[in-house]
Every structure is written in structure tokens, then in C-alpha cells.
């Protein structure tokens, strides 16, 4: 079987045509059904990922986690889902009703829509757009919009503050994210995810541009708005942030969107930097691509959970200075160096991996030296400030 998914599609197409449909409408119905199928599977998969995340975080924090409903508490999310569905959706007084109801839909849609361009296995992809990387960015921005609308239409100060924070955070972190996305684009010579995965047959881009992968990972953590970057819903400051007024299923949508987005970040990192469905034996058995892809996705997803379980929340000023003073210049440097070294390596016949890794190494050393100098100047300034405040003690100590 060289193309099992194509065979399934062909069989369904034949089925529809035997029912008396013409080729055009039949293809339309088929594509519609396939999209619905993928979206449903994805949304249902959050039932599992939410359970897994709660269990893993519980273990990391020396707790048991959900363990009452079903074996190992696996049915806990199902019970939660039933609870959310049966709860009343409350619209607060003074809320902008229509906008208030549309906002969670937008957020969920933006996350699910990203999966249209994620290649799950050889020849198994929603739509092979040739500008997938741009598509991912622009669809992600719709989610930001949804959060903005949710915060604004709730008629609640905390919600509005949370929404403002989200937009500031997402827009500023879009800069290093886009810059780091350009690296796999230029390494593969294409913006299409299918071509990017194909180009990683010999060596995944993580080995060619580890820094770009790390920058992408960090900035997408911010895009999801999870700990340590969950400022938009910082409980101790904003109660619950942008979704404070939401209840019932409309809250459930934000909840599902957040977990699915985290999973999606795993899938994107796996696709762009870890080789997607590439793995040993995929040439003969294309079906193997799916487990490979899922394994890589889950590995990145585990990293995400790990970060969430172990890092404290950053302050808003730390968030901004990390982005503008560190990640953005670093991403610019990585982009320029990757472009030059990869071109030089292919022109002069150097080893591609070694050349690229050497380039990244130079950046790492430079960044570390820059950080060291910055920390030293910060320490000096603090010492001089301390000397001004308490001159007697400072002179006494020295």
C-alpha cells in the first residue's frame, strides 16, 4: 500500500458517486466531511490530553491527580465535560451579547484551523497550501482577536485588563516567532509544510537550527498563554482574566482551545523542526508516519507540560524585556547566520550540519557574553544605588 489514505478517499468518492452525485458536489461533500472528522477527533483528543496533563503535573508536584472516575481517573475529563455542558451559560448584564457569544467560537476555530496545514502522515494533510507558514501565523492572530473580543464584551474590568495583556503579549512575541519560523522556511526553500517535512528526510531541522527551534518553542508558549506566561489569566491579579464572566460550555470552549493549542504547538514544532512524520521505514509503510508524528508531538507536548509544572509566572516587565531585549535580537541573529552559513555550506561543499551548528554555537557564545555583560552592569548599578542610599554602611562594608 503506497497511499492508503488516498485509497480511502477514492473509495468514499466512488461511494458518493454511486449514490448519484456528480464529481464536483461529491468532492465538496467529501472535503467537508474530512474537515469535520479531523476537527471532531482533535476536539475529542483534548479529553485525553487534559487528563494526561493533570496526571503528569500532579506527579511532578508529588500529588496523585485525578484517580476516582474510571481506571487511573481517565474518565475524569468526561465527567468534567458533562458538567460543563449541563451548566447554564450566563450572559452578564451590560455585555455585548453577540460578540460575547462569538468570541469563544473564534478562539476554538483559530486553533482547529491550524491543523488544516499540518501533515499527519505522507499524503495525509488537510490542504497543501504553499504558504502554510504564513497561514499558521495569520490564523493564530484570529485567536488573539477572539480573546480580545471576549475581554471587551464581558463588561468587566478584569476581563478587559486580561485581554489587553494578552494582545500586548501575543503581538510582541509574534516578532521572534515569525523570525524563527523563517529559519525552517529558508532551510527547506519553501513555505509549505509538506515541502518542509520532505526536506527533513536526511536531517531534521532541529539539528541544523536548534536555537530557532527553542525560540519558536518559547514564543509559542507565550502565544498559548500558559505558565510561565499565563499573565492574561493570572489568578492572583486578575481573578481569571479574559474568561472571567464565561460559564458553562462557552467557558469550556476557551478551556478546550487552550489545551488543544498547547497540543498544536507540539504538532507544529514536530512538523517544522523534528521532521514531522519522517522516520525509519516510512518509505515502505506510509501508515507508520502517523505514530511517528504523534510520538514527536507528544514529546514536545510533554516539554510544554514540564515547563508549566515547574516555572513560576513571570512579571509583565520581565516578559517584555525577555522578548524585546533578548529573544528578538537573538532571533534576528539566528536568521541572518542561518541564511549565510547554509548558503556557504551548499556553495563550498561543507558539511551542512557542522556548518550550521558552528554558526549557532557562535551565536550562543555571543548571547551568553552579552548576558554576562548585562548582568554585570545591572549588579554595578544596584551596588551604586545601595551606596547612595546608605553611604555609611556601604563604606563600612567595603
Amino acid at each position, binding site marked *: 500500500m503506497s497511499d492508503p489514505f488516498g485509497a480511502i478517499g477514492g473509495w468514499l468518492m466512488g461511494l458518493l458517486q454511486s449514490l448519484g452525485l456528480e464529481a*464536483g458536489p461529491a468532492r465538496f461533500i467529501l472535503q467537508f466531511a474530512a474537515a469535520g472528522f479531523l476537527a471532531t477527533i482533535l476536539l475529542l483528543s483534548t479529553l485525553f490530553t487534559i487528563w494526561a496533563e493533570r496526571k503528569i503535573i500532579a506527579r511532578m508536584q508529588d500529588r496523585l491527580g485525578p484517580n476516582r472516575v474510571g481506571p487511573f481517573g481517565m474518565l475524569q475529563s468526561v465527567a468534567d465535560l458533562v458538567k460543563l455542558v449541563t451548566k447554564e451559560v450566563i450572559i452578564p448584564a451590560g455585555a*455585548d451579547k453577540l460578540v460575547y457569544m462569538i468570541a469563544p467560537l473564534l478562539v476554538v476555530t483559530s486553533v482547529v484551523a491550524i491543523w488544516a496545514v499540518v501533515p499527519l502522515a505522507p499524503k495525509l494533510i488537510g490542504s497543501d*497550501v*504553499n*504558504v502554510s507558514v*504564513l497561514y499558521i501565523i*495569520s490564523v493564530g*492572530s*484570529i485567536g488573539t*482577536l477572539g480573546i480580545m473580543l471576549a475581554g471587551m464584551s464581558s463588561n468587566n474590568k478584569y476581563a478587559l485588563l486580561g485581554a489587553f495583556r494578552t494582545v500586548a503579549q501575543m503581538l510582541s512575541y509574534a516578532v521572534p516567532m515569525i523570525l524563527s519560523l523563517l529559519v525552517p522556511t529558508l532551510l527547506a526553500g519553501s513555505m509549505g509544510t509538506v515541502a518542509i517535512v520532505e526536506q527533513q528526510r536526511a536531517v531534521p531541522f532541529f539539528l541544523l537550527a536548534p536555537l530557532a527551534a527553542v525560540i519558536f518553542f518559547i514564543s509559542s508558549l507565550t502565544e498559548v498563554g500558559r505558565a510561565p506566561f499565563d499573565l492574561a489569566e493570572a489568578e492572583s491579579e486578575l481573578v481569571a482574566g479574559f474568561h472571567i464572566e464565561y460559564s458553562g460550555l462557552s467557558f469550556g470552549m476557551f478551556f478546550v482551545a487552550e489545551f488543544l493549542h498547547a497540543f498544536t504547538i507540539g504538532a507544529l514544532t514536530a512538523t517544522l523542526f523534528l521532521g514531522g512524520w519522517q522516520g525509519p521505514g516510512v518509505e515502505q509503510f506510509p501508515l507508520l508516519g502517523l505514530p511517528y508524528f504523534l510520538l514527536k508531538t507528544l514529546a514536545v507536548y510533554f516539554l510544554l507540560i514540564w515547563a508549566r509544572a515547574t516555572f513560576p509566572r513571570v512579571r509583565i516587565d520581565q516578559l517584555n524585556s525577555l522578548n524585546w531585549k533578548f529573544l528578538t535580537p537573538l532571533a534576528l541573529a539566528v536568521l541572518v547566520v542561518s541564511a549565510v552559513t547554509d548558503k556557504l555550506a551548499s556553495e563550498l561543499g561543507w558539511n551542512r550540519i557542522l556548518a550550521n551548528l558552528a554558526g549557532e554555537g557562535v551565536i550562543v557564545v555571543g548571547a551568553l557574553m552579552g548576558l554576562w555583560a548585562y548582568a554585570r552592569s545591572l549588579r554595578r548599578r544596584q551596588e551604586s544605588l545601595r551606596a547612595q542610599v546608605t553611604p555609611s554602611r556601604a563604606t563600612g562594608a567595603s
Partner: protein
Amino acid sequence: MTILQLVFLATAAVTLVAALMVVVSPRMVHAALWLILALAGVAVLFVLLEAGFLGIVQVAVYIDAIAILIIVTVMLTQRAMGEGGRQVNRSWLWAALAAIVLFGGLLLMLSQAPGSATVATPLAADAEATVEDLGRALVDVDRYVLPFEVASVLLLAALIGAIVVARPSTEARREGRQP
């Protein structure tokens, strides 16, 4: 009538209605939201014309920017969330007349342009090549490298200008005040 035509007609209708609502809607925030719908409709039209790149750029550039527009609207205007004043003033008739004359003139000109009556043949080139051509054209010395660079310099100037405006004045800094 094919499905593609149905999609086109529906999109066009939604885009036009949304564009109308942008100017008619009494709430400023709602106007911004209708603007999003209108721009999204244009993006869909681009996709229908097999210019997927332009459609995606439309979403990335315009719809992302509107989130900022809404923030600025909310922060800088009084009662941005509530109803504004009246939607029309005394010269609305003249404005409508001018708009109709302009629309009619454009329609007349376009209908007399050569080739307007014939159906355009679909482009043979595949979309990948189009994006590549665009990229090459922007850095080609014989084509658009100069406008491209001038536009970049303009944006850079706007960026620096924003920083200069936002910085505290030198006196304020000398007095040690934080912005």
C-alpha cells in the same frame, strides 16, 4: 451555476453588507468588528481567485492590525463601548451623491475598458511560482527593488518616530522621572 459561483456570490454579499455596516453602526467597536468581516470577505475573494498568498497576507496584516485598532479605540475615546452621537450630519445627501457619481463613473470606465466583456482565462502558472516571482521581483534591480526599499525606509522612519514620540523629554529625564 457551480458551487464556486455560489460561494463567490455569498462572499460578495457578506462583504458588501459588512462594509456598509462599518459606516452605519452606531458603536465604534462594532464598526471595527464589521470591518474585520469585510476584510475577511476580501481575503476569501482572493482565495477564490487562486491568490492564496494575498488572502493570507490580508488576514495577517489587516485583521491582526484591527485588534490594535480596537485597543486604541477603547483607550483613547470616551464612551467607545456605548452609543456614539448621530450617524449622519447635514451634508449626507451631498456625500451620497458624490459617492454615486464616483461609482457610476468607475463602472462606466471599467465597462468600456478593453477585455471587460470577455471572461478572463485562468492563469496557467501554479501558485508556488507566483509567490516565488513576487519574491524575486522585490529584490530585482530592474524591477521593484527601489520602491521596496523606499517603503522599508518609510516604515523604519515610522518606527523610530514612534519611539521618539513615546520617549520622555530630556528635561523630564534630567529630573530623574520615569516615563
